């Protein structure tokens, strides 16, 4: 496509930013009075709802200066909850990257009876309220569970809850990519003498990697901030199974806003980093297409 075609298209879709005309005419993409008012209301709403509260968290964390923030996050209890939460989230992310890709593969490339049911079951963790998810896991893996395995109050129990709520992320991110993947490329590789494993490593893996990474990043962020599904099974044992969200709640309820805000700021920072990473990744993938 030539530059001129691009400009012509830009002209049609109004994506070329250009200065407003001198008269009263509005080009596609220019804000009308109505749209301007709408945008103003929207931004005000977002400010009250998102920007101010986020600013309050950060301001709260640094209320006593950087020293206060540092003291808060290096406090024994805070440090152990942060280490545990990050570690558990990382573990869950790795398991998800592997199992999520595997499940997506089975859903797309395999055919067997009951596949539709599997599709629906995958979505349950998304739709199920987190507190119910916690209850669900306790029923089976708690003190009165049928298997005699009691994970309540154990780190394994927390990891299990996190695996439950983050199950769909990688599956749903990889699945469409596998569906769109060109089977002919694999067949071409096979015709060139590549073995099944080589095809997987050299053809399929590079195709799905961006989707795996983006799904994994989302599940990491989610696991890091998870609260509802964890509190029942973790029993909230300090220094053992207490996750960061529980710690923040405990601090705010015991009137220690700086401690709460400091750990919250840390979680916020990680979330922002993950979002930026995803944005970069998506841009790069979009360019490759």
């Amino acid at each position, binding site marked *: 496509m030539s530059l001129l075609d691009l400009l012509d298209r830009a002209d049609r879709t109004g994506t070329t930013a250009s200065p407003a005309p001198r008269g009263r005419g509005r080009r596609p993409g220019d804000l009308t009075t109505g749209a301007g008012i709408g945008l103003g209301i929207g931004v005000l709403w977002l400010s009250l709802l998102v920007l101010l509260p986020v600013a309050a968290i950060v301001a709260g964390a640094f209320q006593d200066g950087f020293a206060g923030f540092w003291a808060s996050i290096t406090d024994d209890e805070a440090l152990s909850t942060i280490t545990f939460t990050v570690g558990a989230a990382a573990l869950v992310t790795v398991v998800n990257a592997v199992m999520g890709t595997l499940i997506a593969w089975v859903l797309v490339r395999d055919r067997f009876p009951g596949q539709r049911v599997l599709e629906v079951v995958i979505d349950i963790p998304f739709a199920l309220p987190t507190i119910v998810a916690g209850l669900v896991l306790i029923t089976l893996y708690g003190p009165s569970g049928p298997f005699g395995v009691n994970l309540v109050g154990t780190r394994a129990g927390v990891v299990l809850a996190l695996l*439950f709520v983050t199950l769909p992320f990688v599956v749903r991110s990889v699945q469409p990519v596998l569906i769109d993947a060109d089977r002919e490329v694999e067949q071409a590789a096979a015709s060139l003498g590549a073995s099944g494993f080589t095809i997987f490593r050299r053809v399929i893996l590079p195709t799905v990697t961006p989707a795996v990474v983006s799904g994994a990043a989302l599940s990491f962020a989610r696991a890091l901030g998870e609260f509802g599904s964890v509190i029942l099974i973790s029993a909230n044992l300090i220094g053992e199974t207490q996750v960061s969200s529980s710690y923040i709640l405990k601090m705010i309820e015991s009137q220690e806003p700086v401690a709460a*805000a400091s750990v919250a700021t840390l979680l916020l920072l990680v979330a922002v980093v993950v979002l930026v990473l995803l944005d970069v990744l998506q841009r790069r993938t979009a360019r490759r297409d």
Partner: protein
Amino acid sequence: MTDTLARPAAPAPQPAPPARVRRARRRTGPVAWVLRVVALLYVLGLVALPVASVVQHTFADGLAPVLEVLTSEDFLAAARLTAQVAGIAVVLNTVFGVGMGILLVRYRFPGRRLLSAVIDLPVSISPVVVGVALILVYGTTGWFGPALQDAGVRVIFSVPGMVMATVLVSLPLVLREIVPTLEEAGIEQEQAAQSLGANAWQRFWRVTLPTIRWAVAYGVVLSLARSLGEFGAVRVVSGSVAGESQTLTLFVNDSYQEFGPDAQRAAFAAAFVLMAVAVVLIVVIAALRPREETS
């Protein structure tokens, strides 16, 4: 974090070829068998069995005790409050999502990308952090606390705070659904309507809204699922007083924490109700998906 919910997911499996052809073409090899069994066992152990066991556990003593819980005053109050909070939150998010979605797709203005990123932020952070953030601004000792108190408005430990928390955790769900639909539909139908004499209002009602109606419906169902089930953020800002500021998810938690057989039964009965609603919503979403694609 539920934003992946918003992705067009779970495409229906393509129609399978006749059985004989299929068998000849693809014999399930040992590797495929292993993958299939691993995937099934994982999902079965992690999701399917636990969910099934809750149903079994809820009805272990028959229907009567469950009904007793479901007609108890605390439960009904929690259900009413949940419906109220989720209802308001969904309406707010739908209006915001449709309006902001159109602005982001159809207009060019400075800060557009930043705005889009800010909308995604709340669902990417811990719901507890969302709740704490609201307290730091609107709580009695928060930035606006004194001013709100003077005005006699109570936000935190009251319905407005719970609505705000719920709105935040489901903020982009409607928007993220309609943005791709709007982009795909393009601007020409609206321009055609304009050259036929339609003003902005008429274009919105007669052209834009019908174009995105299934995406809006899908986003509304997603927001509803998220709003009904929100726990962490609401837990922080509600105070959770039974019969007063207790939503269904809080009811489940508080009942379970009481550790008596009656309380346990109440927790499971309420959890079952929430689960049933969730499953219904999943089915509605599955039904909406193909329509959205064809419209």
